[in-house]
């Protein structure tokens, strides 16, 4: 009944309230911030805490501060179910009023990417999407801060090689990945690194229908006897892989995942058996941080929204909070630069391109320790923030490494080359070589 109230009555009441009160205010003192969310479908378990975190940060700012500098944050979700077709529909539906779009899947991002040049709407794909989007000269409207998948892959290899990739010489690394554009993202960088440092890379794809039964993939892992397994999994694939790893007695300390493979909700079904599994993460949950306590005080305690039991402490919920912070800080930067209250999509693009998330800023917004400092620029839309290794202790993820940094000397030329290749394949594609915009 409580669930019925949360999922049916609350949104209905909110929708009715929005229709009655928000419409006239929207044009005056609010901004529309659409999010192409996925709370339904096969990946819903991953999407729900991320969307909840994003929504609750915006709600907290609206409740505590009346928005940002007097401008209400109109957070709106359009449900895609993680389907690329529905995602494109949602983009088309929201682009007229929205000043940003969040595609939430590499598939949708790739579809929306060419449209953003025409529609002039910034795409925010934090820690996902197409890695070469980091090149802001080519992808004016796309942002994948605070780190790209290639940054994540580089940090993982740095960690498992004890800081020196030459230690991987002669070793065999399996990339267990979802057979989807997202899962294939790290392959170009890993191939370059494998050749440079002399390790063997063996990609093993997992089909969407095989996510829950990966016995064939883990039989191959048993046969190949790799030194490490790196996972690019999503949703049920993560729990499926960890179940098989535990079953086949693969050593968990040799098993590392990207940041989307480190979800408390996925790990629940693995429990103690997943102890020692690690995941690289650009975010760390800090439940007693001022921002999280404010969310509790202004949003959760007064029951403005409801979340699942224990979700408040989850990596993904708090990552959602950080993702909304990027948008909000972009708006603040644009407001200050353009000396305006209600920013446009073009102004927000400038704001996102000029983010300065340093220690002082993190302290000011109550997020110290939740994310590493980073900044963006015209040429750098990824920020290339560092990350930490989080380890599953049987009940929750805990930070077990110092801050790791990606090796940009390898990533940058690859980003440049792949971005150029993309632009040529999609010619005529506008390139802002001198960063004039």
């Amino acid at each position, binding site marked *: 009944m409580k*669930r*019925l109230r949360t*999922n*049916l009555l609350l949104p209905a009441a909110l929708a009715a309230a929005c229709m009655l009160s928000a419409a006239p205010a929207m044009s005056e003192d609010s901004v529309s911030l659409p999010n192409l969310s996925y*709370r*339904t*479908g*096969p*990946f*819903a*378990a991953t*999407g*729900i805490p991320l969307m909840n975190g994003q929504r609750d940060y915006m709600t907290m700012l609206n409740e505590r501060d009346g928005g940002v500098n007097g401008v209400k944050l109109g957070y709106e979700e359009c449900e895609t179910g993680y389907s690329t077709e529905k995602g494109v529909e949602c983009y088309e539906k929201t682009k007229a009023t929205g000043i940003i779009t969040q595609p939430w899947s590499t598939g949708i991002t790739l579809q929306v990417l060419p449209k953003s040049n025409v529609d002039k709407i910034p795409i925010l794909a934090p820690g996902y999407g197409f890695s070469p989007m980091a090149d802001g000269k080519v992808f004016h409207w796309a942002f994948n801060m605070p780190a790209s998948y290639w940054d994540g892959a580089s940090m993982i290899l740095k960690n498992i090689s004890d800081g020196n990739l030459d230690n991987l010489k002669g070793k065999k690394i399996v990339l267990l990945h979802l*057979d989807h554009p997202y899962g294939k993202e790290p392959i170009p960088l890993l191939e370059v690194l494998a050749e440079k440092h002399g390790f063997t890379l063996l*990609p*093993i*794809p*997992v*089909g*969407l*229908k*095989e*996510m*829950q*039964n990966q*016995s*064939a*993939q883990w*039989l*191959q892992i*048993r*046969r190949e006897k790799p030194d490490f397994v790196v996972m690019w999994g999503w*949703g*049920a694939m993560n*729990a*499926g892989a960890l*179940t098989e790893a535990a*079953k*086949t*007695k693969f050593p968990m300390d040799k098993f590392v995942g990207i940041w989307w493979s480190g979800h408390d*909700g*996925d790990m*629940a*079904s693995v*429990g103690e058996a997943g102890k020692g599994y690690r995941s690289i993460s650009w975010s760390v949950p800090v439940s007693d941080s001022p921002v999280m306590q404010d969310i509790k005080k202004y949003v959760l305690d007064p029951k403005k929204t409801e979340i*699942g039991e224990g979700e408040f402490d989850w990596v993904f919920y708090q990552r959602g909070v950080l993702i909304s912070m990027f948008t909000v800080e972009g708006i603040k930067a644009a407001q200050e630069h353009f000396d305006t209250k209600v920013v446009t999509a073009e102004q927000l693009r400038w704001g996102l391109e000029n983010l300065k998330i340093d220690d002082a800023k993190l302290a000011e917004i109550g997020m110290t320790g939740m994310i590493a400092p980073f900044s963006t620029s015209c040429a750098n839309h990824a920020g290339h923030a560092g990350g930490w290794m989080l380890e599953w202790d049987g009940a929750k993820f805990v930070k077990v490494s110092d801050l790791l940094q990606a090796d940009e000397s390898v990533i940058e030329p690859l980003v440049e080359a792949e971005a150029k290749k993309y632009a040529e394949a999609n010619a005529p594609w506008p390139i802002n070589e001198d960063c004039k915009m």
Partner: protein
Amino acid sequence: MDFLNSVFVKPFADMVAAPDFLLQVLWEGLVAGVLYALIALGFVLIYKSSRIFNFAQGIMVVFAALTLVGLHEKGVPALLALPLTLLVMYLLAVAVERVVLRPLINQPDMILFMATIGITLFLIGFGEIIFGGENKVMITEALYIPTGSFEFEPFGGFLLIEQKDLTAVVGAGVLVAVLLLFLNKSRIGRAIRALGDDHQAALSVGISLSTIWVIVWFIAGVIALATGIVWGARAGVSFALEVIAYKALPVLMLGGLESVTGAIVGGLAIGILEKLFEIYWGQPLLGGNTESWFAFVLALIVLLFRPQGLFGERIIERV
């Protein structure tokens, strides 16, 4: 020459060189095959009795598993949650018959098929409202399903058999045997088969269509619950479970839509063959993930020679 060697010689040499590994592959294939057969049976039973291809079978797996876990989360003991879930599946069968099927009697097959898509969409939305979309943990231990493993050393190698997989195989086997007994020996079972053979003739001898539909949809619900428990124990219970129903489609193409034997043989054959192909040919030669298409290609080849499937009934229509 290298290519011919890697297709015709090396896979078999690998099998001989590591027989323990081959046994592990065969065991994993058997486990998958039993589960495919189970899902396929759900489709076959409904098709046999009503000529409806039940698109909702996949979501019924999710719905049944979520109901079981959801009831347990509310404090209902697992052994009570199980019959209560069966009751929910029975009520669902009654609702489907009353609300969806009964008004559509005598409508073309395509209309009934579309109606099952409607049931799917309804159950997705209804399930998400009631249970939410979060991943849930299957109550394996509360249901007294053993979670350890047996380890053997055949041919000096290593073979691991998980007790829950063994339970799944035995449980599915018992369920299939009971179903076969029910279909072949009981009055209702004979009525279901009679409806499958000829609707009009069955109706003319007093078989109640609505009662039979409720029964077959309920049996499909029982199968969905069994499938949900087994698959849910592997990677949690979420809406992602729905996609496993699509694994049954090639089984149906291979075995025939109206054959119980076809569903069982087809499921086992696909489970074992797709695993063997993936390990010995797919991964070394094609980069892996051949399981997503192998079964369909196999079914296609069978359909070229036997359009009704291996065990399907040959349909001859006079024009």
